[in-house]
């Protein structure tokens, strides 16, 4: 069974294939009735151990536009503590006859554990601090669309903020470097993982130093709990040094774009009204989310038995 668990596991060829397939899905979504029968009879289950309405809705919309049936299994981690093991949960749902699990969990590695226990495909919708591969696909697709290029050679992606706890950062570092981008991480050392020396990145602790030399400025969300854990003394100090304000916006090259995976923390990492950003891709990220997830589900589930499906999808 094929899975989408991480960008490194997907590999550069898989990444390119899914980005190409997304073009077809964008076309489907432009139709008056944005729905195709490609996955009719297939069942996709969202297994969300951590709340994420946006990602879950994006996946479920994608599944429905491909005519798959969807089920939602929202589990609070506490109910797992009541005695049912994760494996029991997965096996029970598998027995109902499902074709794919879309999984979100606060612990890294869950998609690998689950794929040992089910015959269904597993899509990682975020595992702890580890990976969020569909977000990276969305971001790569959005940059391709904005820049009109297939590869990112010569472009600099600057990721700002809480890299340490970010599955978005880990996925994007892998994906953007596969497509040739240079990557700069900007964060105080407390918000960087312990050992990034082996990553294909350069590190800066000053946004002012690097903002003038970036093509893609990627702002990460800073959760307020990082303050109580002592990663930053207070939010004001963080936003002064790592927030996007009017002054830094003016330092950004004119053709550079701004991205954010959402949900945004206004007044923390985003100090200006994002609707006032001249070159924001934030809305495109959300819009492309459905197309990318359609591509992922189609790629995993359409299979050879429905080879004709691609014709139904393709114009």
């Amino acid at each position: 069974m094929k899975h989408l668990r991480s960008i490194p596991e997907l590999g550069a060829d898989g990444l390119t294939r899914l980005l190409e397939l997304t073009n077809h899905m964008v076309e489907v979504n432009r139709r008056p009735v944005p729905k195709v029968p490609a996955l009719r009879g297939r069942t996709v289950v969202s297994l969300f151990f951590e709340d994420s309405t946006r990602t879950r809705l994006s996946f479920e919309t994608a599944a429905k536009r491909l005519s798959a049936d969807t089920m939602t299994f929202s589990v609070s981690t506490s109910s797992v503590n009541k005695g049912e093991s994760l494996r029991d949960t997965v096996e029970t749902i598998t027995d109902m006859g499902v074709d794919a699990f879309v999984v979100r969990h606060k612990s890294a590695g869950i998609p690998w554990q689950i794929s040992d226990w089910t015959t269904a495909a597993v899509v990682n919708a975020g595992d702890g601090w580890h990976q969020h591969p569909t977000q990276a696909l969305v971001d790569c697709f959005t940059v391709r669309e904005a820049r009109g290029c297939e590869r990112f050679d010569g472009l600099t992606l600057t990721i700002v903020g809480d890299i340490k706890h970010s599955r978005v950062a880990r996925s994007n570092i892998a994906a953007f470097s596969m497509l040739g981008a240079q990557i700069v991480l900007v964060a105080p050392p407390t918000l960087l993982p312990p050992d990034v020396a082996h990553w294909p990145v350069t590190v800066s602790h000053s946004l002012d130093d690097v903002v003038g030399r970036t093509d893609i400025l990627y702002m990460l969300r800073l959760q307020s709990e990082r303050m109580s854990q002592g990663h930053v003394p207070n939010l004001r100090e963080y936003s002064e040094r790592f927030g996007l304000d009017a002054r830094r916006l003016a330092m950004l090259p004119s053709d550079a774009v701004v991205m954010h995976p959402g949900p945004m923390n206004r007044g923390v990492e985003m100090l200006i009204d994002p609707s006032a950003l001249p070159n924001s891709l934030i809305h495109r990220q959300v819009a492309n989310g459905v197309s990318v997830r359609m591509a992922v589900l189609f790629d995993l589930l359409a299979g050879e038995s429905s080879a004709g499906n691609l014709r139904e999808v393709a114009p």
Partner: protein
Amino acid sequence: MKRDNNAKRGSNAKRFVLKGGTIVDSRGERRAEVAIEGGVVVEVGEALSGDAIDAGGAVIAPGFVDLHAHLREPGKEEAETIETGSRAGAKGGYTALVAMPNTDPPQDSVAVVDFVREQGRRAGLVEVVPSGCITLGRQGEALAPMAELAAAGVRIFTDDGNGVQDELLMRRAMEYGRGLDVTLAQHCEVATLTKGAVMNECQCCTTLGLPGWPAVAEELMVFRDIELARLTGARVHFLHLSTARSVDLVRAAKRDGLPITAEVTPHHLSLDETRLMSFDTVYKVNPPLRSPRDIAALRKGVLDGTIDALATDHAPHPRRDKELSLDQAPPGMLGLETALGVALGVLEIDLPHLVRIMSINPARIAGIEARHGRDIEPGAPANLVVFDPNITWQVAPDELASKSRNTPFVGMTLRGRVRHTIFGGDFTVLDGEAQR
């Protein structure tokens, strides 16, 4: 497998002779036969009379002593009972197990300690040696009744699973313990540095996005307790050391003549942090699997005598507990039945030294040297192991005597296998088969 043949089982009073083996004990190696009768070694020599038990080509040594076994009873009998843990121990060549105190209720009262010892006696497969808690409920807030526990026979105290965080309380425990002539065994972990940690803090955890357990969280407490031992004169034992710098600290402390001892586990000598790349919870253990550099330093520490004992940290968990996410699954792995095979598989160690770290030293540290780890000579209690040091084998989880299956050694080739284990003159294991 049960056997009816009482002569073969060597039922206590009946005399039998181990033939064809090589004795390895503190006096070195020598070929000799060993006659056992009435629970003791009665004769060592050539051509002894009595029912012959084949020890051909094997090592005859004092039975192994594990300083670190979680037998889970009372409280978590779903994972292990004192009987199943004792059987696993016997299969691993052990004749004594120090039972860790993180039971439910914990071993912080005479009643619980007596219960554990009595359950051990009832099972009759090894000597179960209860440790006592340093603090009440292992909460790190107030001392357990150490004198009462010592009077009930406890010789080694630990809050294992937790380190005692409070410096003043640990100082008091050492001072009080020195007056009782007991050993304080520390699980070295500064808890504020390891909150939520799942694996070693390293390159690997950076990429996997798993919260890291930094080596310094262990080393700080090793250093602290060495200095407190220097201050108080207490006997201190370090449980499951896992880092290179911890070994250096203990080496320096021993050079200063401090009464410090230390143990390592088979898994910290053999498995590194990259195992977690599979996200298999069987590799989640506390302290975590470390780097190849740490593994090399631990092996060196064993070989140069800095590390006194191999201890299993045998930590059974039922399937459903390990089938949780990595952040929720409990740490720990099985060890009793694989310790010898792992040790011989990864350590370039001579047999007398192996017997020192698996039997003689841990018996002394546990305060049971009168009955275990003794030289094999007339009058010694017949607590012995007979093992084949060169046989290689692979672990089959279904053949384990433990009630749990969380062994990380599946598929690994181990070297050295137990042939017979003799406890109190009885065969608990004969030809590799548990007798009861």
